[in-house]
């Protein structure tokens, strides 16, 4: 199979003349866009379910249940946004072709993102000890469900970012991988304010 | 259409049958025309399998050609307007509008039996003179009934085919609706929402009787006698 005519599994990086079929966006990024569409709808379903449960309750949050740590989580949200900003710097450096100055913001984004997840973990431990569990009320159930699914996504996104960072260190980070990883992370960051507004406030 | 299968035993049964018939004639005509044209085309332009015959080259992109699709499509829309109007009107009368009641009943569904509660002489529920029956609903002809439907465990569906009435019973909610029986006799009540393995074993009987017979029955089941014939209300 001649390389010039091969289809498919390229991510738009090779310098072969493919103008006739140069994709509008690279495969990895398009795939990630589609995946994110599904994920947005997953969270839309969860948030809708939460709204309905909340409307059905006479008092919300239910009496006798611990309150969620609004201030601490606000701080944590700022950390999450900071990580997105760091990733934006990395994005700019990457598209300037400046891989050297991209390293520090990548590490920063990874570090802040991991801090966010770990901080959430501590929050959970505290809440559990205060008596908010999945079975104690729908309040608790929805809290752990929605925040837990978000945390799972954060894990996945961090893993993907770490993989991109690893490639960066090795010197062959492709736009497809970087684009997919940063898109996923921006999705995780972008959906958080919605969760914070709906679930915490 | 439907009236040839089942008697119309409520005031709105006729409306629903009318809507069904209207939809039937409209879509039936469409179906006949479409399948007529379809078979005519297939037989007219059929060639033997090995034939060398060629076809006409029609893109269908020109306006004069597209007309053959757009005009029927506008006609479909036109017919839809009638159907929508009829559907909305009937729906409004049956499910959204509530005429002032003559009588009220409670219907309680559970796995796998129906409990019907008449309020008794004081016309109030949850009092001592409530009349409970299981798997038998007795109604008075030509009285406007409000029903309050609820469920003790899973979802059920209160369905009375002769009334053309159907309403899901949802645990945790009380759903209000109405009907007016117009024909005396004995009919089926079915559960129309799957409710476990006993779903097929949840038949109840509906007895519609005239006012005198109904009053007599209510008196017979009045709270004084009730103590003697305590109805077997199955607690969950």
């Amino acid at each position, binding site marked *: 199979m001649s390389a010039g005519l091969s289809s498919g599994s390229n991510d738009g990086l090779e310098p072969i003349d493919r103008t006739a079929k140069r994709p509008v966006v690279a495969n990895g990024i398009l795939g990630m866009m589609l995946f994110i569409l599904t994920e947005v709808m997953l969270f839309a379903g969860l948030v809708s379910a939460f709204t309905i449960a909340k409307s*059905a309750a006479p008092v919300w949050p239910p009496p006798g249940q611990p309150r969620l740590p609004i201030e601490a989580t606000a701080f944590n949200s700022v950390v999450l946004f900071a990580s997105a900003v760091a990733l934006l710097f990395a994005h700019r450096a990457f598209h300037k072709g400046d891989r050297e100055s991209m390293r520090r913001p990548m590490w920063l984004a990874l570090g802040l993102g991991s801090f966010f997840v770990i901080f959430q973990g501590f929050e959970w431990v505290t809440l559990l000890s205060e008596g908010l569990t999945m079975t104690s009320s729908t309040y608790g159930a929805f809290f752990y469900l929605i925040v837990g699914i978000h945390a799972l996504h954060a894990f996945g996104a961090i893993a993907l970012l770490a993989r991109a960072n690893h490639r960066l260190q090795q010197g062959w980070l492709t736009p497809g991988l970087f684009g997919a990883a940063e898109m996923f992370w921006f999705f995780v960051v972008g959906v958080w304010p919605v969760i914070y507004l709906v679930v915490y406030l | 259409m439907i009236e040839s299968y089942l008697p119309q035993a409520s005031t709105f049964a006729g409306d629903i049958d009318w809507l069904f018939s209207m939809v039937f004639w409209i879509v039936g005509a469409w179906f006949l025309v479409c399948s007529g044209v379809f078979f005519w085309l297939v037989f007219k332009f059929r060639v033997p399998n090995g034939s060398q015959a060629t076809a006409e080259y029609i893109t269908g992109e020109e306006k004069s050609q597209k007309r053959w699709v757009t005009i029927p499509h506008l006609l479909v829309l036109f017919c839809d307007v009638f159907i929508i109007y009829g559907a909305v009107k009937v729906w409004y009368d049956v499910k959204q509008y*509530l005429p002032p009641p003559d009588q009220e009943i409670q219907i309680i569904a559970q796995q796998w039996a129906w409990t019907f509660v008449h309020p008794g002489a004081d016309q109030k529920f949850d009092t001592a003179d409530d009349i409970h029956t299981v798997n038998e609903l007795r109604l008075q002809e030509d009285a406007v009934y409000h029903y309050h439907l609820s469920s003790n465990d899973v979802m059920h569906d209160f369905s009375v085919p002769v009334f053309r009435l159907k309403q899901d019973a949802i645990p945790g909610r009380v759903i209000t609706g109405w009907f007016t029986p117009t024909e005396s006799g004995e009919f089926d009540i079915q559960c129309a929402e799957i409710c476990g393995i006993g779903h097929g074993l949840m038949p109840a009987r509906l007895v519609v009787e005239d006012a005198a017979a109904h009053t007599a029955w209510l008196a017979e089941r009045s709270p004084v006698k009730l103590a003697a014939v305590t109805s077997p209300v199955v607690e969950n």
Partner: protein
Amino acid sequence: MRLKSLRLKGFLILGLVGMALIWPDFAEACAVCGAAQDEATRKAFVGTTAFMTFLPLGMLFLVVGWYIRRTLQREEEEEQRSER
């Protein structure tokens, strides 16, 4: 996504929706709707129904619409290039 045919359909749909709104009886009166708490739930159901219906449509119009427009644009460019 030829806009011309979509516009025709848009008009028709608008007309029908308008017709539905003209029937205030049907749209407003709800004799069977119950207590205050029910009303809140009812509103939540209607709201989330609208939300879940329009969110995917909005996203698709933005993302897929953008993608299709870009692709068509590029096809046009290429056609011009090959003509030259």
